[in-house]
């Protein structure tokens, strides 16, 4: 077939096309579908409350100490800054691992460092410091123990495992703790003193810097600690790292209510609430991760009343877990002094 014939055929098709296009014209609207523009919504009225955001960052690396009275962050640290915390009052003799990193410990029953040679069986025997089970502790009381503890240093903010240490709690008195540490892959055994600081709840020791480190501010100066911590689910048993708020163990109490409107909570309502001193009264449950859409959902109707160490009352509720850029790890709450 020649090009001339081809062009004649094209012309023919063109003529037929013109005819049938007219027929098909009524179908034209059907091919022009497109996405509709959205209507904007009206912003809410904030009212007589203040709104604050605390930065934990998206990998929850920060531990943030917050004061309700001063309405500000008193101090913050990265969660890899410390490993062990030691009760710091005169009588105190309990030791805790850094739960924000999912640390855990197991009493090996051995007394000599050389006798502990591997980590087999560790995951069966290990214990954690879960905030909802304060009675089961990873290490706990160290007054009369001379056993070696095998301690899993947990995960850093990238999820990488930090390895193991072996620790022996040599002594504790009114002023200090004495411990011995052997790091994984190290033959050397180091001895350290951790001095009690009576103005704090805890003294802290860092394996990374091999030294006592200042972490917590003065215990009278803060109320809430924003951090990751361990919550133990049951049925099935599952210890899990959650992100939330723990109370200052020193004279701070809180209550939760989801039945009364936030605006209607005043000092009278607050006085009638049953305050508790458990560390996780505020906890992590004011938000929930939706597996279906991968978005944290906020339960703003969970209202909290906090009584600080000076017996001042505050009400607060969470309104967001994202910052203005949509990054997670930025709890935002509304706060009002009662």
């Amino acid at each position, binding site marked *: 077939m020649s090009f001339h014939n081809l062009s004649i055929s094209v012309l023919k098709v063109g003529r037929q096309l013109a005819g049938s296009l007219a027929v098909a014209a009524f179908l034209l609207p059907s091919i022009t579908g497109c996405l509709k523009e959205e209507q904007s919504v009206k912003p809410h009225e904030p009212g007589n409350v203040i709104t604050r955001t605390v930065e934990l960052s998206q990998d929850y690396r920060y531990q943030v100490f917050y004061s309700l009275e001063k309405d500000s962050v008193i101090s913050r640290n990265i969660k890899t800054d410390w490993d062990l915390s030691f009760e710091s009052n005169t009588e105190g003799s309990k030791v805790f691992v850094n739960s924000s990193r999912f640390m855990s410990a197991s009493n090996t029953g051995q007394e000599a460092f050389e006798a502990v040679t591997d980590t087999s069986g560790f995951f069966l025997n290990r214990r954690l410091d879960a905030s909802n089970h304060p009675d089961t502790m990873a290490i706990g009381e160290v007054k009369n123990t001379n056993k070696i503890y095998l301690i899993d240093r947990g995960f850093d903010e990238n999820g990488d495992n930090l390895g193991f240490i072996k620790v022996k709690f040599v002594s504790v008195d009114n002023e200090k703790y004495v411990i011995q540490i052997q790091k994984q892959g190290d033959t050397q055994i180091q001895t350290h003193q951790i001095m009690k600081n009576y103005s704090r709840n805890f003294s802290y020791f860092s394996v990374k810097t091999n030294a006592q480190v200042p972490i917590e501010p003065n215990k009278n100066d803060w109320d809430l600690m924003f951090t*990751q911590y361990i919550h133990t689910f049951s049925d099935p048993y599952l210890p899990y790292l959650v992100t939330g708020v723990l109370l200052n163990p020193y004279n701070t109490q809180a209550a939760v209510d989801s039945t009364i409107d936030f605006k209607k909570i005043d000092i009278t309502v607050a006085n009638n609430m049953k305050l508790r001193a458990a560390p996780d009264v505020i906890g992590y449950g004011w938000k929930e991760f939706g597996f279906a859409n991968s*978005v944290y959902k906020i339960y703003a109707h969970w209202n909290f009343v906090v009584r600080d160490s000076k017996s001042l009352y505050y009400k607060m509720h969470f309104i967001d877990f*994202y910052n203005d850029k949509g990054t997670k790890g930025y709890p935002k709450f509304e706060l009002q002094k009662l």
Partner: protein
Amino acid sequence: MIILLAPNFVLKTGQKYKLLQNNVLFFCQRAKKTSLSFLSHIENDMLIIVQYSHNFAPQEMNLIYMLSKIYNITTLLFMCLAYQGYSQSDVSSVNINNLDSSFYNKTLNEVVVTGNYKPTGIDKSVVPTRIISLSKLSPLAAQNVADVLKYQANLRIQQDNILGTGMTMQGISGENIKILINGVPVNGRQNGNIDLGQLNINNVERIEIVEGPLSVQYGTNALAGTINIITKKKPAKDVDFNANTYYESVGHYNVNTSFGWQINRQSFLLSGGRNFFQGWSEGDTSRFQTWKPKIQYFGDVNYNIDLGKTKIGFMGNYFNEFILNRGRPLLPYFEKAFDDHYTTTRYSSSLNLTHQFDNQLRTNILISYSDYTRTKNTYYRDLVNLSEIMTNNSSDQDTTRFNMLSSRGTVTKTTDEKLNFEAGYDINVETGSGLRLKGKNHSIGDYAAFASAEWHITEGVTFRPGLRASFNTSYQAPLIPSAHILWKITDQFTLRASYGRGFRSPSLKELYFYFVDINHNIRGNENLEAEKSHNLNTFLTYKKVKAKNVYKAEASLFYNKINNLITLAILRGEQNEYGYINVGQYNTSGGQLFGEIVLNNFSVGSGASLTRSMNVFNNERYPADTWETRSNLTYTFPKAKMNFNFWFKHVSKQPGYVLGEDGKIQPIFVGTYNLVDFGTSKKFMKDKMMLSFGIKNIFNVKNIDSQLVGGAHSSSNGSSSLATGRNLFVKCEISL
């Protein structure tokens, strides 16, 4: 008088013809020597029709009638000729009195290419193949491969509104089904599945389905079965224009067009279109929609040149899809929301070369390159001022890219004697990159050689053994044998049986996945072995043609056993570390019965199938049975050029088992449902225009009860999306 009609004959005045030998009138556009090698078969008073496919254009039908009348011809001899060649074994003869349009579509020797040495009549194919001819589906207004497959037996479709449409065949899903377009593997799997909703059928001629492994020919993934989508290669006429528009009341607005022409030995086909879906949610008026809004753009180019003994074809495809997942407004003030934007782009191009050395020896070489990119972006949208900002959460933004270079070559020797051979190579090199692949960039190379022989033991019995050996850069590739038997017991009864080993190589994701952050610890495993399977299939078919009536029946049984099943499992209990491991065994078995009767203008088909899946965990067996029935009914009014179609499928509850997070075996299930579609179409304007309308999903199925995950975080029984409820559709097709 003998008249021979060769490929692409068109009735027109001044048609050239040649007089050959004794009274043979030869109509064609270009005479080829090879076309005449079967002339010894020809008797007097025959009209011989040589066709590229089994579809006839109306003008071709007219020509056949006219010539038969003029030359007083009683017997028609059909030569089935696909795009690559044919031989005398594909000839079938029919009496002129049995000829009408419905007859053509039902009985004409349909041609298959998947797994065969050369295009072969479906009755003669050693490999049991099902053909879905797209022209038959026209009244149902199927828009993509998912629409086409949902009424097929032993096939189940699963819908995920973000990942797309997946499929289960013989009780085996996802990764174990090979999908080819003209023999070129489709890459880019999400969660193991190729999204069937991304495979448009605007320029598809037919779909060939082979149940059972074709691993010898096609390598990995072809374990449960192979689906080969055959596109139109050439325009039906010298100059050919088609335009289709489609509207469905739930909010589908589709349009596509194609334009093709032929000049001498060359042919061109261009097509393209746009599909738009506005999104749908039952009863929910917020910005969130269960079925996500979607826009697709696609285009295809086909070029073919026929140089006599050598044929060269080029194919290029482009596909782009945008899915907008608008999030629910966030509590408590509904001023913000997260929106996910998913963009998928597919490019592929392939070059196909066929050379016929002589009557017996031919070679085919296929080279293709495919590129798949899927981008997920999450935006944090301010609903007060309607601005949005891309978030920087580690898991929010991701681009996954897979590209694949593959080449297959075969040398085939086909004679009419006892023994035929095929030998070939198959090379696939795939690279992948993505945020969650360890080291970000990986490649797998698979280099294989395969051979098979077709041994015609006696007149009716053909035996075909095959073997594939391969070298793989990432894992130990198994040696794959297969054997097929075809026994033509009588003219009506045919028995096919096959044994095959199949395998599935570990995917790049399973080898190199890396997702470790503060909440997750999931890692790929570079030491995975391939999943290996044994498969047995038998098919007994009965087909009888009597006058204008056709009677067909089919019974089949299958058994699959997969070892080394790759499973995502918890590795270190309380550390929550997950990884892929080769554990477990999975068996499926089942059978199918199907019957079809065509009486004049009426046809009815009905079938039922049963599938048993057997999970084996720790030597304990967990059986799960499911069954389905399907029927279709067609009535044609030839004078009015109208037809009516009903399609029905009942799918029973499908139970299953998964290994839960706590190591316990958890039961899962997908609930029962019924799908019924009705469609009618009528031709206008000298068949140049066809209007179809109908009702999809007459029983108004939307969600089905299901529980798909076990474990600690699972809620109680949920439901999963299946369809968007009852909808009307209208389709307009114009072909000039």
